C-alpha cells in the first residue's frame, strides 16, 4: 500500500486528526531543579487522557534560573482540557494538592492568554485570612504562609482557546524492541520542541483506541485494526511483518507546534531505519470528520 518511504521506512499517506482544546501553562519553581521537577511531575501525574483524567498535562520544558520570574530553577507545565470549566477545576485541584504542598515551591503564569484562569485567586483561601495580596509590575501575586515559609502564587494564568490535542504518530516495528526504540527516539526529539507535551507514560501509549465500543457506556475501546494479535480476526491495518505498534500523542498550544513536533518525531524515527526502529509509520484519524486539524505525514516528512 504505501508508496512513501524514507530511509527504508514505509510511511502511510495518511494524516493525524486533531481537535481544538483549551489549554494553559504554568511555571513552577523551587529551591532546586529536582524539587521543581517533583512538583511538576506530581501535578502532571494521572493526566494522560481527558477520557478519564480531566486534563492532559505534561512538562514542556525545564527552565534555568535566568528564565523564571523568581530567579530559581523551574519547570514549565502545559495542561489541556475540553472545556474552560474543566480546565479551571483541574488547575486549582492539581496546583492545590501538588504544588502548594511541595517543599519550597512557587507557581507562576506560564502563558498570556485570551482570558484569565484562577490560580492563586482560587488557592489563597487555604491561608485562612493570612494570605497577602501583592501587585506590582502589572502582575498580581498571592503570598500564603505555609509550614516551610511562604507559598507565592500568581493570581491568574492565561487560557488559550486555540490549542490542539490529538496530534499523533503510529510507530510499527518488526519486533517489540524495535517499535519501542522508534517511539523512544521520536519522543526524545519531540521534547526539544516548545509548546508541546506528549501526555502518555514516557510520551508513549501502547493502547491506542478507537471511538466507541461493543459495550454500552464505553466511549473508547482498543484499536483492533492495529493490534497484531488480532490480525486475521478483524479488519486489520497491519501487514505480516509488523509485530508491535506504539503511538505517540501530541498536544500543543498551537497547530504549528504540533506539526513541528510530528516533523521532529518523524525525522528521528526514520533515521533509525526499518530494522533498528519502525518499519512503518502511520497516523491515527477518524476519517477526517471529527477533528478540525489534519496533519498529513506526507507534508511533514524529512
Amino acid at each position, binding site marked *: 500500500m504505501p508508496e512513501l518511504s524514507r530511509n527504508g521506512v514505509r510511511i502511510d499517506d495518511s494524516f493525524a486528526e486533531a481537535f481544538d482544546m483549551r489549554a494553559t501553562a504554568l511555571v513552577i519553581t523551587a529551591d532546586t531543579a529536582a524539587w521543581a521537577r517533583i512538583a511538576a511531575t506530581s501535578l502532571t501525574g494521572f493526566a494522560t487522557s481527558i477520557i478519564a483524567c480531566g486534563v492532559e498535562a505534561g512538562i514542556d520544558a525545564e527552565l534555568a534560573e535566568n528564565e523564571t520570574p523568581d530567579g530559581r530553577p523551574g519547570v514549565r507545565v502545559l495542561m489541556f482540557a475540553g472545556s474552560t470549566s474543566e480546565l479551571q477545576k483541574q488547575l486549582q485541584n492539581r496546583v492545590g494538592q501538588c504544588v502548594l504542598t511541595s517543599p519550597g515551591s512557587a507557581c507562576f503564569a506560564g502563558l498570556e492568554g485570551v482570558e484569565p484562569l484562577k490560580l492563586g485567586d482560587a488557592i489563597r483561601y487555604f491561608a485562612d485570612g493570612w494570605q497577602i495580596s*501583592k501587585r506590582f*509590575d502589572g502582575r498580581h501575586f498571592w503570598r500564603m504562609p505555609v509550614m516551610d515559609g*511562604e507559598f507565592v502564587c500568581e493570581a491568574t494564568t492565561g487560557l488559550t482557546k486555540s490549542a490542539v490535542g490529538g496530534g499523533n504518530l503510529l510507530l510499527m516495528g518488526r519486533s517489540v524492541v524495535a517499535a519501542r526504540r522508534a517511539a523512544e527516539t521520536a519522543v526524545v526529539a519531540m521534547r526539544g520542541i516548545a509548546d508541546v507535551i506528549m501526555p502518555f507514560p514516557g510520551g508513549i501509549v501502547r493502547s491506542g483506541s478507537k471511538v466507541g465500543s461493543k459495550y454500552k457506556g464505553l466511549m473508547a475501546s482498543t484499536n483492533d485494526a492495529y493490534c497484531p494479535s488480532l490480525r486475521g480476526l478483524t479488519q486489520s491495518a497491519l501487514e505480516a511483518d509488523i509485530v508491535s505498534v506504539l503511538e505517540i500523542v501530541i498536544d500543543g498550544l498551537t497547530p504549528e507546534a504540533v506539526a513541528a513536533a510530528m516533523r521532529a518525531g518523524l525525522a528521528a524515527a526514520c533515521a533509525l531505519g526499518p530494522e533498528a526502529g519502525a518499519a512503518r509509520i502511520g497516523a491515527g484519524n477518524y476519517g477526517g470528520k471529527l477533528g478540525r486539524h489534519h496533519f498529513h505525514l506526507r507534508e511533514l516528512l524529512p
Partner: protein
Amino acid sequence: MSALQFSLRETPPQRLDLSALIPERLADLEMAEILRLSVTTTRQPLCVGDVFTVHPGRADEVVIEGGSARFDEVGAGMTRGTLTVEGEVGARAGRGMQGGRLLVRGDAGVFAASGMRGGEIEIGGSVGAFLAAPGPGERLGMAGGLVVVRGNAGPRAGDRLRRGVIVIEGDTGDEPASRMLAGTLIVCGRAGARAGYLMRRGTLVAAQAAPLPTFVPIGSADQVFRTLLARAVAAVSPAAAELLGKNLTRFGGDVATLGKGEMFIRIGQIAATG
C-alpha cells in the same frame, strides 16, 4: 514634533493651580485657548499666558521649564502621556493621578501622589509630608501605581497606603507607612521614628528602622517574594533592588491594630526599641 513646553518667565505672584497642564486637558486645545487656561488660586485672575511662555508641541509630552514651590497640583488627575517639570513643585503633585508618567526633577511639597490610582511618579529631589496620603476627608491614600523619590521624604510617607509601590531612596521623616492598609513602601535609607505606626497590612522595607514594641520579629523564608519585588523595581531604582537582595529581618505588626503588616529591616541596622 517636540514636546509642548511651558517656560516660566518670572516668580509667580501667587500659588498656581497647574492641574490644567496635563496631556489630556491640552490635547484638543488651540494655542490661544491654552494661554487662557486659568491657573489662579486667589481672587486675582491669572492664566497660563500671564506666567508662562508656551512653545507649541505634542500635547502627550508636556514639559514645564523652571520650577517653583508655588506650582501646586502639577499632574493632578493625569491619565496618560508624560509631564516633566525641570525644577521643583509645590503641594499635591500628581494628586489623584490615574495613568501616565510625571517626572519632577527637583523637590516636591506636601501631599505628593496623594490619592494616586495609577501611573508613575518620579521625584528627583525630596518630598514634603504626607507622600501618597489621603486628602482631607478621604479614607484611602495611594491605591495604585509607582512612586520613586530620589531624595528624602517628610513625615507620614505612605499614610493609609492601599495599593502600589513607593520607593524612597533617601530617609523618611517620622511615622512612614502610618495606618498603612496594603501596598509596599521601600525606604533605602533610614525610616523615621514609629515606622509602620498602626499599620494594618502591607509591606515596609527599610535599610534602617527602629521597630515599635508592637512589631514582633517573625524571621521566615520570604526570598521568592523579595526577588519578585526586587525585579519589579530594579529598572526604576537599582538601590531598592539591592536593598531587597540583602539579608533582612522580618517583623509583623502593628499588633496595636490588625497586625497583618510586615516590616523588613536590614540586619545590623536595627535601632534599640523602647
